[in-house]
């Protein structure tokens, strides 16, 4: 028989960050979080449902309003089998204890306890009262030190105070927790009570598989973005007179490039929205000055992201070398690799000096009119910028905690954003990875399938996984 969902009551003092912890654990930013105390006024249940079956229910409770009274009553009635239920029976008609009864109700029904404590402040009397009264409930319990600031001087005091009364004590910043930290916390929860382990194992495994799935979906989105951008052309039929002079030609080109850029911005935006949906973000905040806020074609973005000229030249040489190598093959090797050499040199030089134009213009003369086409993007440098931007966006989406909506981003003592020099991820790729990418760009530009696409997917997969587990920096704030 199904024993029903495992219930975990998230308890604590008002404004300790209980709702933030639930929102971050369940990746649910629809949970109301405010930085004014008392936002949660009733016990709300947030089930974790896997294939229609609820395994765990996190219960976000209101804060303690009368911890001193509760402790006094609990001490007097400590022999009650279910002291929480007895308290509710006695006090539920008294409106002064409405929140205390509400928060104790899940405990009286057998829920496990997670006490959320603002670990950035010193231990106060009410904290001691709450710790003691929760001990008297005799339910499995864990304490979370939710330090949302840069102050760490009370951590050890809290730790020793809590260890006496709680099965487990963990530090967890609900505003900044990453995927890996979230999974770590869930893993810690499973060990609080032996009976919890199977359900937590299932839930953690579902969270992990779901995460991998999201990464795969993100890879699809990015590959689609590049395929779309690399096949995108803009054309216009014009009067031959209009392109008969250099100035006229330049004017038409400028108009079409503008349209091409608008199209690419649209594709990028749409990919970003998809990525945001993959990681279930409804509430979002990008810091001012972030490269994500700048225009894709702006100077700041092109300087801050992408590859250096030298790196581009090396990657371009690889692509040129391959094209030349194909020519060598057709001559059955008679040319002794001369084409490969020339191709590599050509590719490198083009990348070094010819990389300023975003795209080439094609003029097709027809009877009575001229068709002018720009696109697809021919500047590999821009594609690496686009790659960096979308990876930055992914990093933000993956590591933006769902509980952060309640953070006071203006607070003087908040955990500061890392100050990093504007830089993306492409710089850190190996030369062979960059070469694979250039090969993929070249094939996608021609609408061809290429083995390089698989390599591109692998590079994306590795980067996104490393961002998840924190092996590489998420460049928050860039």
């Amino acid at each position, binding site marked *: 028989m*199904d024993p029903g969902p495992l219930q975990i009551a998230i308890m604590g*003092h*008002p*404004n300790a960050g209980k709702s933030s912890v639930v929102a971050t654990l*369940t*990746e*649910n930013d*629809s949970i*109301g979080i405010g930085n004014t*105390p*008392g936002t949660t*006024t*009733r016990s709300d249940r*947030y*089930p*974790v*449902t*896997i*294939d*229609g*079956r609820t*395994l765990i229910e996190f219960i*976000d409770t209101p*804060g303690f*309003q*009368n911890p*001193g*009274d509760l*402790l*006094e009553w609990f001490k007097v009635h400590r022999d009650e089998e279910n002291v929480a239920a007895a308290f509710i029976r006695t006090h539920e008609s*008294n*409106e*002064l*204890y*409405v*929140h205390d009864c*509400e928060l104790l109700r899940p405990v009286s029904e057998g829920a496990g306890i997670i006490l959320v404590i603002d670990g950035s*402040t*010193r231990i*106060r*009397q*009410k904290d001691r*009262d709450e710790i003691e009264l929760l001990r008297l409930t005799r339910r499995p319990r864990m304490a979370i030190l939710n330090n949302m600031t840069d102050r760490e001087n009370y951590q050890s005091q809290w730790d020793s105070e809590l260890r006496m009364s709680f099965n487990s004590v963990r530090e967890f910043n609900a505003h900044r927790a990453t995927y890996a930290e979230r999974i770590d916390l869930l893993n810690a929860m499973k060990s609080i009570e032996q009976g919890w382990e199977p359900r937590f194992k*299932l839930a953690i*495994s*579902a969270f992990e*598989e*779901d995460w*991998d*799935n999201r990464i*795969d*979906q993100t890879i*699809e989105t990015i*590959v689609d973005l590049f395929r779309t951008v690399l096949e995108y052309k803009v054309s216009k039929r014009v009067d031959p007179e209009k392109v008969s002079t250099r100035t006229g030609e330049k004017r038409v080109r400028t108009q079409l490039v503008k349209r091409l850029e608008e199209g690419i911005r649209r594709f990028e935006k749409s990919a970003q*929205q998809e990525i945001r*949906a993959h990681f279930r973000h409804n509430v979002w905040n990008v810091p001012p000055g972030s490269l994500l806020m700048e225009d894709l074609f702006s100077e700041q973005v092109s300087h801050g992201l992408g590859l250096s000229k030298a790196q581009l030249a090396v990657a371009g040489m690889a692509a040129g070398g391959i094209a030349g190598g194909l020519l060598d093959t057709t001559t*059955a090797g008679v040319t002794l690799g001369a084409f490969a050499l020339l191709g590599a040199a050509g590719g490198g030089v083009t990348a070094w000096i010819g990389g300023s134009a975003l795209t080439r213009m094609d003029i097709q003369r027809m009877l009575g009119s001229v068709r002018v086409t720009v696109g697809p993007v021919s500047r590999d440098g821009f594609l690496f910028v686009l790659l960096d931007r979308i990876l930055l966006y992914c990093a933000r989406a993956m590591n933006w905690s769902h509980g952060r909506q309640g953070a006071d981003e203006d607070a003087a003592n908040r955990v500061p954003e890392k100050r990093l020099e504007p830089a993306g991820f492409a710089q850190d790729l190996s030369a062979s990875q960059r070469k694979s990418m250039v090969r993929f760009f070249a094939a996608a530009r021609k*609408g061809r*399938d290429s083995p390089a696409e698989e390599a591109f*997917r692998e590079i994306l997969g590795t980067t996104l996984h490393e961002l998840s587990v924190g092996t590489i920096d998420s460049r928050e704030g860039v």
Partner: protein
Amino acid sequence: METKRSGSETTNANAWENPGSRWSVADLIDYETFLNADERKVRESPDARREIAKRDRALYLEGAGEAIPAPEFHTPAHRRETLHAWLDGRRRGAGGQERHDLPGETFTRSLRMAGLLAILAGLGAGTGITAALLRYDGETPVNVSWYVFVLVLPQLAMALAAAVIWLLRRSASLGRALEDLSWGLRLVRSLVAGLSRRFQARVPQNAREDTLARGGVAASRSTLYQPVSTWTFLVPLQAFGVAFNVAVIVTTVALLWFSDRAFGWQSTLDVPDQTVYSIVRTIALPWRPIAGEGRGYPGPEQVKGSRIYLNAKKEAYDPAHLRSWRWFLVLSVSVYGLLPRLALLAISLAARRRALAGLSFRDARSQALYRRLVTPSLDASARASGAGPEMAIPRTGQTTRPPLEPRTAPSGKMGADECLLILHVDVRDVLKDEDDSRLLKLVGNHTGWRITARRAFGASAAGNRDVTATVATWQWLSPPPRVMVVDDGSQPPITEHLRFLKDLRMVTGAEADITLALVGEATDSEPLPPVTGRQLSQWRQKIDQLADPYLHLVSLASLPREDA
């Protein structure tokens, strides 16, 4: 019930005995159709992705999820079986017309029809050509050379060529030769592409992009399924060959059975009879053990006796020699025509089955679907059930504690400018002796009062009761009573604190002057910092709700300029 997820423990060994064999060409076509439909849906509305994922997971749990042992996950066999189960589910879920319109069944019927037509064409061609080659006017014997050249040697050459290509299929030289052959094809293809571009230039951009996208998808899919499609289309071709040879044999036997025909050979060159005999004997090599000389093929005398000379009278020929070729002809077609065709048909069928069984479904679209299927559907997006009552604000006379015990002994007397200081224990505990003068100064700044006595509250409920009981016993020489309460303003106000203030009001009287002074988060260097503007405002909201006109709220230390 245990959740059916990737770790499902239910097993069904039968489903795995012959993995992959369930896929047919019709399945592949329907599979692609459903994938395209889903992709279109997602393109039209990205929100459809979630619905599709939900539907696919449900299909998986209904079908394959039951039958798959956990260790098999992410193996090719598991992927094939899972995707097939999904296809079955999608077909079941398709409505009447949609199901009827699925192209897989139509393709199967068309292929069957093509096979039938190929058989009919083979039978017709075989019968016609044989009848023409064996036409006998009763004067000149039928020339067996034509029969062999038309019906046997080309088929033998084709079978040999197929065998050579098969054996050398991986050699580079053959690859280059085939590439050379394909140059012509490429030329045609580029011509078609050029024409197509000109045509596309005239259609609207949306339609053009759609056509290109479809073309791209079709091209990428055809690469994936190339082995399957090659063998699939070879089957009707081989059926044609088999039917052709059967028709040749049946027609030949029928003509032999129902008519008396003379067969011979002729040559303008001076070809020795012995040479022809040797060729015939070599051709008959495969059936010599069962149908020997004189029966399965003509002997030297019969070869010699059946040579046709110009102007020779038919009486000059021995009828037995002229008939001696008949079974040679039948057996030649059987061995060099029918048998290779049957073998190729069997190979085509087996290869098609093998290609179907070997489909890995590792392409991006299939992998994405597979992931959707095997990944448990996780939902933790529940919304809050609604707002509850706000925190309780104690009303006058509202108490939950035992009535205050009257104290008989007075605590002391309070002068005109004197007050009672009540410190919260959290504030008291961080104060050092040297902070005392500053505290007194700050209190004085706000009220001008001198502190005569001090108490602490907040240590326990009983302690609070004791404090209020003590306050009640003070004698105020110059009423109203004056009480300064210093509380920790860095923590949000809670009912318990408000109730203490209310109790204090009860024991000091309705017009007693009570000042609540808040201090902020203490640090090692500053035990009495000011509260922030936000904290003060949070407290003010609650204090205002107490509706006590003689209760003043202040920040003990001055607020920072921006907060003030």
